[in-house]
């Protein structure tokens, strides 16, 4: 059973719908005991980091996520869920986050351009994700598969070794990170067609063991 964490950060039911489509049992939950019982955890979210962290602390879910990470349980972060696993985010002033992965989350700089044209923020739409090396969660995905993004802030891990994939949008940023039993993606696999579904299916079978 996969627990999809509902911490009042946007509509998380689209992740559950994608899992149901794949016949993967899941529960959308905000209860700590469900997270402890679940074999795997998906940590999604859309919205702002400040509010998300407030909710996570108030509900005690912040501790549960950390606990799950320590326990070796497979964990998948999506979008805002990915951003709050870093030490801090530049959003809402400076938001202290869960700190599961060293590094921060930064705003796309103003004035980024591509081919002479100014780029719009948020980064919204389909973009290429270049995976670095093999990982069970990214198995079977073409090297430059495109995924759907919606975000104004991007993950900036301190350790290059945590970067699992990169994407270009005026700058090159880490669109996926991986460390041990944790994989976190900035894009939305639940809205990324076939390849996104493949990623979710891979995660539903992953035992959390190290890549390569």
């Amino acid at each position: 059973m996969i627990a999809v964490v509902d911490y009042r950060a946007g509509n998380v039911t689209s992740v559950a719908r994608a899992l149901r489509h794949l016949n993967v049992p899941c529960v959308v939950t905000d209860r700590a005991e469900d997270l402890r019982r679940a074999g795997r955890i998906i940590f999604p979210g859309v919205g702002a980091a400040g509010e998300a962290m407030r909710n996570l602390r108030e509900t005690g879910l912040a501790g549960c996520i950390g606990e799950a990470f320590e326990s070796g349980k497979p964990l998948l972060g999506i979008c805002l869920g990915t951003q709050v696993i870093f030490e801090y985010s530049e959003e809402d002033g400076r938001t202290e986050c869960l700190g599961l992965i060293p590094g921060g989350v930064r705003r796309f700089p103003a004035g980024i351009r591509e081919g002479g044209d100014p780029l719009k923020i948020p980064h919204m739409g389909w973009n290429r994700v270049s995976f670095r090396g093999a990982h069970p969660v990214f198995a079977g995905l073409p090297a430059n598969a495109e995924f759907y993004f919606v975000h104004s802030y991007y993950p900036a891990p301190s350790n290059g070794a945590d970067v699992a994939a990169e994407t270009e949008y005026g700058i090159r940023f880490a669109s996926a990170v991986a460390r041990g039993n944790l994989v976190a993606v900035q894009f939305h696999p639940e809205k990324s067609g076939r390849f996104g579904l493949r990623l979710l299916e891979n995660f539903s079978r992953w035992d959390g063991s190290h890549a390569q």
Partner: protein
Amino acid sequence: MLSKRIIPCLDVRDGKLTKGVKFKGNVDIGDPVEAARQYYEQGADEIVFYDITASSEGRDIMIDVVKRVAETIFIPFSVGGGIRTLEDMRGVILAGAEKVSVNSGAVENPRIITDGAAAFGSQCVVLGMDVKKVEKSARIPSGYEIVIQGGRKHMGLDALWWAREAENLGAGEICLNSIDADGTLEGYELELTHLIATRVKIPVIASGGAGKKEHLLDVLTKAKADAALIASIVHYGTHTIAELKEFLTGGGVKVRDVW
């Protein structure tokens, strides 16, 4: 590099497509869920549903359509048509739509943009604009005016002013429909699209007029649109989405590969 999006638009009334959608080698499809599934599989980057239902019973049918679409396709889709209140927005978003588009409802009550962005995030709120070319005047300096009711009612609002106002109010995207080009199959309104797309910082979807694949190339390159809305060109089987994307790739436009 971000791909330019190709977005089929499906008009729905009382839960049925208003025009049949014909796929190559297939019979006509009147079911919006099935049409959405086919476009999804063909490589559409997003799908727009426009609900032209008038009655409130029809609205409930549309919510049911949205729920079934959300269980069938796994790309973003938006729903528009008759959205006037925050509750209308909440209904389609909870049913599974990624985005909701407001048009005349926002002209009448611009606060719905702000309220919608605060409740669901800017990325959920699309401003639909129906625009008609008029004489330039002190009131309409861009020479493009906002109209509603299919172009029958002029609102005295300058299109460029309204686009920037909506951006400031919190709209995350603009779907720009030229009433003059709509249905002509003679190409998008390039001048209008360029004017808006280069003056706002949010993405602009060009709508109205696509009849040939060259039209998409023009609007995505010369007119700087971020996405192209298409209807007849795919509904009547003139081209598949794959053919359009192959043509655009050949023209140097980055689009999502169809696998």
